[in-house]
């Protein structure tokens, strides 16, 4: 069994909010002019990471199934004169990089996860196994409906960040992974986000051999 205690739990549910509205809502959290080129996912991650304030020796674990879907599709639309800015922004872990580059905040460990059905278990495993004193487990999606497909982007937007440490004193809850005999198991990001948002407990098989427990004090 591996576990860490939750010392900060931040969530943002933007609902149907468009990127311009998200930018306006969260503008004050970023240096002047910095939000102009940020994606909606970058803004949302910036919002939930702001109270957590990642530091250089923290382990930063990021999970997103779709990543920068708006930037991806805007970049595709820029061809044949491909946009260098959108190319950089479209890479998977760009949301977190936008936030930390803006804040000029280096981190030693940054482990960005993709996947879907087991993404929470695998990212949580990274957060719980890291030898860093504090792990920050963050993730999210931006809502987007790209032209001609409903499967290449997330239908909902959200973001979360958990600050995790071995210290139980003063914690809000506990995130735990227990080895199990389960041959299967799934827990996708939207379900995990909702549990965080509603301060609801989770105790279920989240990947083969991995049972995830989220408990609140």
């Amino acid at each position, binding site marked *: 069994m591996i576990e860490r205690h939750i010392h900060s739990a931040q969530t943002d549910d933007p609902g149907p909010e468009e990127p311009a509205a998200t930018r306006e809502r969260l503008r004050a959290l970023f240096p002047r002019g910095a939000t102009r080129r940020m994606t909606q996912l970058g803004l949302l991650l910036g919002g939930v990471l702001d109270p957590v304030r990642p530091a250089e020796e923290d382990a930063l674990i990021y999970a997103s199934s779709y990543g920068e879907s708006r930037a991806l599709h805007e970049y595709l639309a820029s061809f044949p004169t491909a*946009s260098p800015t959108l190319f950089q922004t479209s*890479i998977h872990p760009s949301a977190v990089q936008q936030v930390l580059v803006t804040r000029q905040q280096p981190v*030693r460990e*940054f482990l960005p996860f993709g996947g879907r059905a087991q993404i929470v278990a695998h990212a949580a495993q990274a957060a719980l196994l890291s*030898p860093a004193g504090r792990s920050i487990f963050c993730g999210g999606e931006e809502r987007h409906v790209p032209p001609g497909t409903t*499967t290449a982007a997330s239908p909902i937007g959200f973001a979360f960040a958990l600050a995790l440490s071995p210290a139980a004193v003063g914690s809000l809850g506990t995130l735990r992974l227990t080895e199990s005999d389960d*041959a299967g198991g799934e827990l996708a990001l939207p379900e995990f986000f909702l549990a965080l948002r509603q301060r609801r407990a989770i105790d279920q098989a989240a990947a083969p051999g991995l049972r995830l427990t989220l408990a609140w004090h």
Partner: protein
Amino acid sequence: MSAAADSQPVPIEAADCRTPFGDARATSAALRQGRRALTLQPVLGAAGGDSVPLATLPGRSLDETAPPAWLSCLDGLAASIPEAAWGDARHPVFVTSSNFGVGSLYAFARGHGPDHLEFCTPFALVDGLRRRFGWGGNVAVLSHACVSAHVGLLQASRVLAGGRAERALVFSFDFISPFVTGGFHALKILNPEMPAPYAVRPTGSIGLGDGAGFAVLGRSGAGFSLSAQSLYNEMNHFTANRADGAGFAACLAPVAAAAQGRRLWLKGHGTGTLEAGRLEAEGFGRLFPASPLVSWKGGLGHTLGSCGLVELAVAIAAVRGGEAAGTVGTTAPCFVDAVATEPFPTSAYDGVVLASNAFGGAHAACLLTHD
């Protein structure tokens, strides 16, 4: 402190790769002969554009097919993985890539039909590979641009070190498409010039190449180990490093500490850009002044997120064969005198430091040791 914890040796049971030259052994041999897989091709494939150095698998077009033509390459690579119940609780798989099936998304966006859609998202593509190769559901997916493979190796090592697996498979691939060639061309570092890593010259340039690789970790006997691993993310600029080279130093320092007393050669990232190449070469020179430095991207091109595993497999093949390739495509003068431009025997060394870099000032390095 994470760096110290990642200095626990992790045995490498097997590693191999696929490049346009073939498997790791064939790739190492071709590089030792100074061969380039890179040829000048239109940057946007059938849509044309400037001719730039690209290295695609034999017979593979830059324009994506549905299903992708590179799946057969991955079939061959997967067939060479030692047998285990991959994807069950005790045999986790870590799939890493920078691009996954984004070439399919590009083809779909260009009107080439909905058949491309099932390969577009990383999770759909990896789930398809999982079924194709008969793996169970314990398949983690990681993507951190061009340090993706290193990140997968590190996480797999931690799962093993934590006693949560018997063996772990790290599987990485990146196949180039107009999506990525167009992007690097827009950044002006993919241009008509062939790459010459670490060479002092007026203009920097990179090449891009197809690549895939795997490593099976956890069981000793093959004589190779990952004896230290390190990450560092500058977060100073999206596409530039700190001018003082601090990011390179911060990443390499824990590896240098773990390598004390060893005789090392160095396989750098070395894409062929000027500023990053100079900073990297000087950073290596400060910490490993007596060690020869090579890059193989002048022959293979930059295989993106897979480069860490592709080049790890090639390094192991080089050690097994007794000779490492020099920096293909480069002639003196170089940023540092330690750049090896010709092949050299590996018998005088007992370790290799392998490094990769990525967008966001991301750095990764590991120490490969052998009996």
